[in-house]
């Protein structure tokens, strides 16, 4: 039988690790990587749910997540390049000119 409950637990743990990554690491690359982890965890939860109900919908949503992740990474990394060119550093706290 499919370990659905454990699947959700695992996706929860992975998602939490992703959140920690985003909060802790100040390097922009690591933030992006943590976001990838969180996305992946979400995808896992969807697939687990699909598996539970025996419907393909879970996997279809995962596909959409994949597409979104791809687009997001491409744009994100392009921005990282731009930022690095501009600020010569990837530290998010340094790049904080947008202030109230």
């Amino acid at each position: 039988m499919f370990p659905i409950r454990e699947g959700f637990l695992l996706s929860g743990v992975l998602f939490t690790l992703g959140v920690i990554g985003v909060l802790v690491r100040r390097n922009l690359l690591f933030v992006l990587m943590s976001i990838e982890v969180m996305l992946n965890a979400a995808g896992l939860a969807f697939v687990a749910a699909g598996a539970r109900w025996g419907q393909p919908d879970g996997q279809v949503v995962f596909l959409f997540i994949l597409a979104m992740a791809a687009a997001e990474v491409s744009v994100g990394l392009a921005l990282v390049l731009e930022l690095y060119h501009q600020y010569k550093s990837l530290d998010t706290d340094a790049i904080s000119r947008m202030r109230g």
Partner: protein
Amino acid sequence: MTIVFYTAGAVAIIATIMMLTRLDAVHALLHLIVSLLAVAVIFFVLGAPFVAALEVIIYAGAIMVLFVFVVMLLNLGAHAARAERALLTPSIWVGPAVLAAILLAEFIWLLASGNVPPSGAATIGPAEVGMALFGRYLIGVELASMLLLAGLVAAYHLGWRKIPQVEATHVSHP
């Protein structure tokens, strides 16, 4: 089957933790790839072979490679790792860790309270997924394609002029 699930799960978690704590971006990337592959295995265990394959091909294969490619392009060098260590003081872990712990507790609480009976439906192959994809979710597919197109155009627009100069300036000071 459950043994495979638990081992893959452990591998995924350990790989992710390792990713978080690495100072060098490339090491972190490699750990991330391992974690993604572990998740692919789990997909397989959950009876979703098509998605597992996709995970390996696209997620681990394409996106991570793109990541590695960009990291190489940035050519951070050793001093970046030293800078990372300055930022990663142990005290910085406390706040996020507490927050994450609460988040995890809430997940577990929600999972525990929810009555998810284990069910053993058959595996859902690519055929069913394909039919759903181009049946009910046709609009979703179109939107996804547009999203990808947007990502493509943005990446192209943001990056096309800068690449050569980065080469030039960077060489001057290692």
